[in-house]
């Protein structure tokens, strides 16, 4: 069964005067999924949305919607709606008329508009606010009006450009749940833009990580978090320990002066690699019992856990998230499982990476999950 493709980018490039903002972007968006574009400010996330919505056109390559090239389709003829970062509500209209705007433009009859708007306002939990002025709504409420205004048109795809960034933390978390819930109930495809990795991990079916006009990795939140393709992604998605290492052979990597069993392979023997271990995968033990030993430098209480920073004998910095506390100046051991070690080749393309992961990670997982973790070199 092939999924229906809503939007497809094929080798899309976008230039503004001299600056190339998007560089050969290709991806497909399948119907009914929640996609997230994740990347730092200025990497071209909004530009991608503009290309889909039709407010900009590609310098080269094609953007197709439902299989049709969109070159000559103006924004108002696309069944795609946007929720803007600053909401862009119409201050001269009340809540009802804001939501009804799209339907009125389509000259739908009054009764139908009324029932649809009422229904949609209910969906975003704003019933009874119909006659409010926009100026009288709070940030979170405005946000929901903006969502309702887009959703009422029953778009094939909803674009959301950092819609939660203006909200405070609590409201933002609440809206994350609501948006995710809404998307699953309605089955509409969402393309969500954010530079907040936690938000991306919490909400998405699929994350596209961007860097300077390129998509560097696409995958489920788990895949992107557990198997980042390179240092950039590993760093951007959550905090991690990234140390230089050397691949001894398949399933064996050497770093911090020792060789460890891991679940990766497919590199050249003795190839230089980056080794990633997440701070929460490191377990604190007595110095002798540890796979590696670190000297604790600082410790911060972070609420749920302690954040412990230390250095090993080879001079690598390690960050540990632990529910147990230690104290600065002590020498402690760290243990970890082979699955917790993630190896990244330097300058690997996404295709090669995916292929290698496919080939090795799954097979290796079965093989090593019984065996022990560290072995001395």
């Amino acid at each position, binding site marked *: 069964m092939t999924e229906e493709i809503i939007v497809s980018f094929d080798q899309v490039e976008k230039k503004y005067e001299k600056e190339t903002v998007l560089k050969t972007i290709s991806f497909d968006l399948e119907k009914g999924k929640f996609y997230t574009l994740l990347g730092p400010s200025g990497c071209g996330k909004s530009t991608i949305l503009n290309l889909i919505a039709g407010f900009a056109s590609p310098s080269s390559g094609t953007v197709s919607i439902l299989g049709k090239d969109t070159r000559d389709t*103006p924004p108002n003829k696309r069944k795609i709606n946007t929720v803007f970062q600053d909401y862009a509500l119409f201050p001269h209209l009340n809540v009802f008329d804001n939501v009804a705007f799209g339907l009125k433009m389509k000259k739908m009859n009054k009764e139908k508009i009324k029932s649809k708007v009422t229904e949609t306002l209910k969906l975003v939990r704003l019933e009874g606010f119909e006659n409010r002025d926009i100026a009288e709504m709070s940030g979170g409420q405005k946000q929901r009006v903006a969502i309702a205004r887009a959703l009422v048109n029953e778009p094939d795809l909803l674009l959301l450009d950092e819609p939660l960034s203006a909200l405070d933390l609590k409201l933002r978390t609440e809206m994350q749940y609501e948006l995710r819930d809404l998307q699953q109930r309605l089955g509409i495809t969402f393309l969500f833009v954010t530079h907040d990795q936690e938000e991306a991990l919490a909400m998405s079916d699929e994350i596209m990580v961007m860097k300077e006009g390129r998509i560097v990795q696409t995958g489920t939140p788990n895949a992107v978090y557990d198997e980042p393709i390179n240092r950039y992604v590993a760093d951007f998605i959550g905090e991690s320990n990234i140390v230089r290492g050397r691949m001894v052979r398949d399933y064996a990597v050497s770093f911090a002066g020792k060789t460890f069993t891991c679940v990766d392979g497919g590199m050249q023997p003795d190839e230089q690699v980056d080794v990633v271990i997440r701070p929460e995968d490191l377990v604190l033990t007595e110095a002798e019992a540890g796979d590696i030993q670190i000297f604790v430098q600082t410790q911060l209480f972070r609420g749920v856990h302690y954040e412990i920073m230390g250095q090993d004998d080879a001079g690598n910095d390690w960050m540990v998230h632990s529910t147990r506390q230690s104290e600065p100046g002590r020498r402690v051991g760290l243990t970890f499982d082979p699955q917790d070690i993630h190896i990244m080749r330097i300058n690997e393309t996404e295709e090669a990476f995916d292929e290698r992961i496919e080939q090795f990670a799954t097979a290796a997982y079965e093989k090593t999950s019984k065996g022990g973790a560290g072995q001395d070199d």
Partner: protein
Amino acid sequence: MKQKQKWATVYLVLVFILLYTPIFYLIFYSFNEAGTMNQFSGFTLNHYSALAEDARLLIIALDTVRIALLSALIATVIGTAGAIGIYYTRQRRAQNVLLSLNNILLVSPDVIIGASFLLLFTLVGFQLGFYSVLLAHIAFSIPIVVLMVLPKLEDMNANMITAARDLGASPIQVLTSVILPSITPGILAGYFMAFTFSIDDFAVTFFVTGGGFATLSVEIYSRARQGVSLEINALSTLLFLVAVSLVSGYYFIQQQQRNRKKLSQLDPTVHEKAVTP
């Protein structure tokens, strides 16, 4: 410090007295029983009733209003379109040039504008009269309208236009259902200013009027030259009252706008907390 403030107040009062004394002097004598402004001999409304019977003056008054209403209306339409045009001009330089051209028209002396219009009309053989005055008034009102409307356009959230197109609005629909409603206060203010300027104008009208057609300001001027008549005082008083009411009307509109703005700047969360359970 206090001393300084006191002097400032005194100065201000003096200036206002200086400015308003002639007007009140004029108004005062419009009720004078004697036909001159030398001596007040008793209260009368005779000059006003004479005014009411002066058919020619009545026609001129009506013409003046007609010119003002019509020229302000047309200037508002053209000026608003012009402002939108300038707003949409992508290139900064072209935008600045257009704006400068607009402002030069605004600050150039009426005499020059009047004289150049006269030149133009005689050159193309346009008959001086109602239409020549109307055209001239439209022309000098357009820059005023542009100046009132443009800031409103720039205040408008440009994303709103994007949002409207995103929601399926055609370019015409964007104009009628987003842009125009957003700049309505500016358009109204522009109309109002154009109207006042038209009523007010003497110099330009003086140049381009002819064929027996006159506006009140021109008529008052020519009558005043012929000699003192308290009818002119009465007429001026009425005009002064009209001006005062116009200004207070304008003030009222602005006040209302300001209140709305204040309302929108209030912390909305306070309200929300009170309303949502």
